[in-house]
């Protein structure tokens, strides 16, 4: 749901909130007199049956004016448990796991109903759920799979844009891992349980968790949320291209696309992995332990030669940038102003990034064009740094001459004073 509530909804939200809060104010005035006897008992009951007023107050449904009765039925105005929880009064009894999606869907899949509370919210969650692996298994009688409340929580269910919500972007991975990292729980399903551990090492997790970039992908970004399922082998590049547009465009036109498709290999994942997607380095193109090309290619063939050319070009630009950086740092340490060249270095770095993106075309000439542009800038910056050092030497010569002049005056004055005081 976090993913569904895009920015445009978020901006419309306050206005909507104002409108609904007026409606709800009217509603709550009548509610206020109505008694909620459920919490009187259940707030004192132990864990499984216990719900406190404090917990429930965080629940988005409570905030919109819904009560226990809205989901559980019964008569909250009666203090007598037998009357309050009587089938006659509409009490639904303990809700079974397998009934939960249907129960939530009774409101959330009803556009007419949802429009009264949040017209922007989608109403296809249940339909999507039925297409998910979770939903299909539930239908087949497996009640171990996730239902709505497993991810969203229950009784203190917060809106997905609340940072404390279990489905807030930064909490999603943890929420999924409750089941998917539990080897014992997942034992019967024959799928790995190390996804979460791997994901936390990935560049995506770094961006999301460490840098706090909420747009960085988490589990649901690639797998879907209500319709969660592994993306098929064929759709991997499509999924990645949602963000990595250029890489995908180049890959689509490349020879690897043809080869991977015919071998039924999952595109991007072949070189970058799926969950443990590390920040790529040039070493991937090398022959060391991180190298990927040579896992399939034969040393010395045409492709290996291209690989080597691409790698050497990238390395060349990288070291040219480093050399210029060093030269500029040296000039700066001597107090020279080289901010212009420093600015140029950003351009050179941009070119290196572009060249690295161009690797996905697997064409030497595509990479080369960017590398050459970068080299030109980096070399210009290097020259600027060297020029600054030459200039520094000029300054020192000037200083030397001036000090020499002063060195003439001082003894001159000394002698002169001596002379007049004689």
């Amino acid at each position, binding site marked *: 749901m976090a993913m569904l509530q895009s920015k445009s909804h978020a901006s419309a939200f306050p206005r909507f909130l104002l409108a609904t809060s007026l409606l709800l104010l009217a509603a709550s005035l009548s509610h206020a007199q109505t008694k909620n006897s459920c919490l009187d008992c259940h707030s004192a009951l132990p864990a499984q049956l216990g719900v406190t007023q404090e917990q429930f107050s965080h629940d988005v449904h409570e905030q919109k004016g819904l009560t226990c009765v809205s989901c559980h039925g019964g008569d909250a105005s009666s203090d007598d448990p037998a009357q309050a929880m009587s089938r006659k009064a509409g009490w639904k009894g303990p809700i079974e796991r397998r009934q939960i999606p249907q129960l939530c869907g009774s409101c959330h899949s009803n556009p007419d109903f949802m429009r009264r509370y949040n017209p922007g919210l989608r109403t296809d969650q249940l339909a999507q759920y039925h297409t998910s692996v979770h939903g299909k298994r539930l239908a087949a009688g497996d009640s171990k799979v996730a239902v709505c409340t497993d991810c969203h929580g229950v009784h203190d269910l917060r809106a997905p844009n609340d940072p404390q919500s279990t489905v807030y972007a930064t909490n999603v991975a943890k929420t999924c891992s409750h089941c998917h990292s539990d080897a014992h729980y997942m034992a019967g399903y024959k799928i790995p349980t190390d996804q979460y551990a791997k994901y936390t090492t990935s560049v995506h997790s770094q961006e999301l968790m460490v840098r706090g970039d909420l747009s960085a992908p988490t589990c649901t970004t690639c797998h879907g949320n209500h319709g969660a399922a592994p993306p098929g082998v064929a759709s991997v590049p499509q999924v990645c291209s949602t963000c990595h547009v250029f890489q995908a465009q180049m890959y689509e036109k490349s020879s690897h696309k043809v080869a991977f498709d015919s071998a039924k290999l999952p595109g991007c994942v072949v070189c970058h992995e799926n969950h443990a997607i590390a920040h790529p380095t040039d070493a991937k193109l090398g022959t060391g332990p991180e190298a990927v090309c040579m896992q399939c290619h034969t040393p010395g063939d045409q492709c290996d030669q291209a690989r080597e050319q691409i790698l050497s070009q990238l390395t060349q630009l990288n070291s040219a940038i480093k050399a210029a950086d060093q030269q500029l740092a040296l000039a700066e340490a001597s*107090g020279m*102003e080289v*901010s212009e060249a420093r600015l140029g270095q950003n351009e050179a770095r941009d070119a290196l990034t572009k060249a690295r993106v161009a690797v996905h075309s697997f064409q030497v000439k595509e990479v080369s064009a960017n590398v050459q542009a970068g080299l030109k800038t980096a070399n210009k910056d290097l020259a600027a740094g060297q020029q600054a050092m030459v200039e520094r030497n000029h300054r*020192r010569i000037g200083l030397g001459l001036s000090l020499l002049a002063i060195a003439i005056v*001082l003894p001159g*004055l000394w002698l*002169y004073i001596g002379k007049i*005081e004689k």
Partner: protein
Amino acid sequence: MTVLQNVGNWLSERLEWEELIAPLKKKTVPRHRLSYWYFLGGITLFLFIIQVLTGILLLLYYRPGASEAFESVQYIMTQVQFGWLIRSIHSWSANLMIFTAFAHMFSVLFLKAYRKPRELTWVTGVVLLVLVMGFGFSGYLLPWNTLAFFATKVGTDIAGQVPLIGHPIMVFLRGGEEVTGATLTRFFGFHVAVLPGLVFLLLVIHLLFVQRQGMSVPPSVEKEWKENPAARRELKFFPNFALRELMAWYVGLGVLGALAALFPWNLGVKADLFASAPAGIKPEWYFLFMFQALKLIPSKIWFMDGEVVGILTFALAGLLWMLLPFFESDRKARSQQWITGISVFALVFVITMSVYGYVAK
């Protein structure tokens, strides 16, 4: 030589300067083992002159204003020929001047040169020191870089802590509630018009006092001379002392040139009003002792805000410091030692706090 003499005669007939410089010719400087300290005031004056000259030169290219100040200083540093030299000298000389002014003050204190009849010379001197620090504070902001921006923010904030008058002072300094381009315009005005005017006026008074009263002789030397009048020695101010002072100025010039050429003053990064403050913001070194002392004061003292107590204490201490000569009595009593004790304490305090502030994170 004759041409020069003719011109000199011609001018002297019209200006009658012989009369003007007569007191200078008569003036003598006591000559003793502590005479070296007499140079410090002169060196400070020399550095001030350098400041005026380089400051005027910088005005040719500098432009105040949040959108232009940084760029114009960058332009001076990179594009204008010898711009780097002029600006570096201005910055280095500013720092050296504040240092020599401090040294001058403490030398006067320890040599007891502030005694009657020189109380007013001391008072004008202390005011001059405050004004010079004002020069430093206002000038620091002018390049409009990040460090200066935040240092100004913190500095004016401290001024704003003073009860009652603090807030109006802060608004007056900032030209608003916040440090913005308006502050820069204001500081520029202070730096190139208000402060130079005040300093010039006070400097003239200060120097007139020195001329009228002559140089003070330290008590220990005075005592020796009283016991043995034959040991009394004097040096003619002009040209004998002046030439020696000139040598000192030349050395100062060399040092300035070397510092500027070997360690050009850097420019930093342009101030961004919306950026968060970088860690470890510190003021210029000459404010460091106050800054650090304020940091060490507990946040609450009795019922008052610790920082406010600190600021008021500094203000009071500054005032008493300025009036110090009036506490000196003619009787050779404990009071003399008392003042020396205070002076030593002040010097140790300033040095310790500055070093601590420099080292502390």
